[in-house]
């Protein structure tokens, strides 16, 4: 009796389904006193619509069949439509990717930089220095081009 009360208390206090299931399995299902507080199978069965009472007023099979007769065709059409839509999407994606690669390649080959003119791109002709000497001696050389200018400054100096 006190065990039943304890189980009831624990059942109410801890609303966790695994815990409640454990209490049901361990105690409630086996205890006649506890089971008396639950509706029996017969009582529940008397409240429910039974299989033998079912009287389907609509011709269910006819409706299902009519819905399914056109179905294979529709399904095929649907699958074809889906397939063609997927193919079209892939086509567009490939074409777009190809275009992007083409434009990027073209811009790279042209030396294009979105941030503005690059220092090297602004130089009209190639500027090369093979060897710099100052006073007959090899010199330290610094080449400098201000941003946005065609001017190139060559700074050469000795270590002395």
């Amino acid at each position, binding site marked *: 009796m006190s065990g039943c009360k304890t189980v009831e208390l624990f059942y109410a206090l801890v609303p966790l389904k695994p815990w409640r299931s454990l209490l*049901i399995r361990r105690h409630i299902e086996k205890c006649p006193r506890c089971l008396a507080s639950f509706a029996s199978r017969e009582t529940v069965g008397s409240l429910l619509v039974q299989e033998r009472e079912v009287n389907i007023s609509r011709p269910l*099979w006819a*409706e*299902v069949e009519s819905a399914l007769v056109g*179905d294979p065709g529709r399904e095929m059409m649907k699958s074809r439509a889906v397939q063609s839509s997927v193919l079209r999407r892939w086509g567009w994606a490939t074409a777009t990717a190809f275009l992007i690669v083409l434009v990027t390649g073209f811009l790279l080959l042209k030396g294009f930089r979105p941030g503005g003119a690059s220092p090297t791109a602004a130089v009209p002709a190639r500027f090369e220095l093979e060897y710099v000497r100052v006073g007959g001696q090899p010199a330290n050389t610094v080449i400098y081009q201000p941003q946005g200018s065609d001017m190139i400054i060559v700074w050469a100096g000795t270590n002395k």
Partner: protein
Amino acid sequence: MDEQELIAGCLRGRMEDFRMIVERYSAPAMSLAMNILGNRDDAEDACQELFIQVYRHLKSYDKDRSFKNWVYTILYRRCLDCLKRRRQSAELVKKMGRETVLATPANPGHSHPPRRLPSDLLERLKAKERTALCLWANEGYTAQEIGEVLRCSDSTARVYLFQARKKIKKLLEQGHVWLQNG
């Protein structure tokens, strides 16, 4: 004819085999749907949707599972969809400030006599509790089988079932209107 043979026949496109499946499961499916939905018209709609879906998804049926449970799982989902639609339309009607149209019969000229549906008591339960109760009382399902239909653990199914039984008992003890009318 064996159920697996019927399924194999359906997969080969034999409509006759599918008709036999529909006939075999119409009554149990209808009783479950009526117990969940509490409404004959909605139950018939749910059953129609069920069989169409069964036919379309028969390829995905796992032969290791019980076919009946698989069918009931689909039906349960269809019933939940129906309840959701009903709730949404009720909310819409409520928002519009009109009287609910759900209370009126779907087909006033219906030739069948008005039949008492188990709506009074069962409406107090949640859909999953009603389903668990129906499977337990009508089909003799265990908590594990109920869990398979509801797609939950057997512990959860057991709790749903006992909650439902407890609520029913309480309502019956309170002298519910159903008893007075009955």
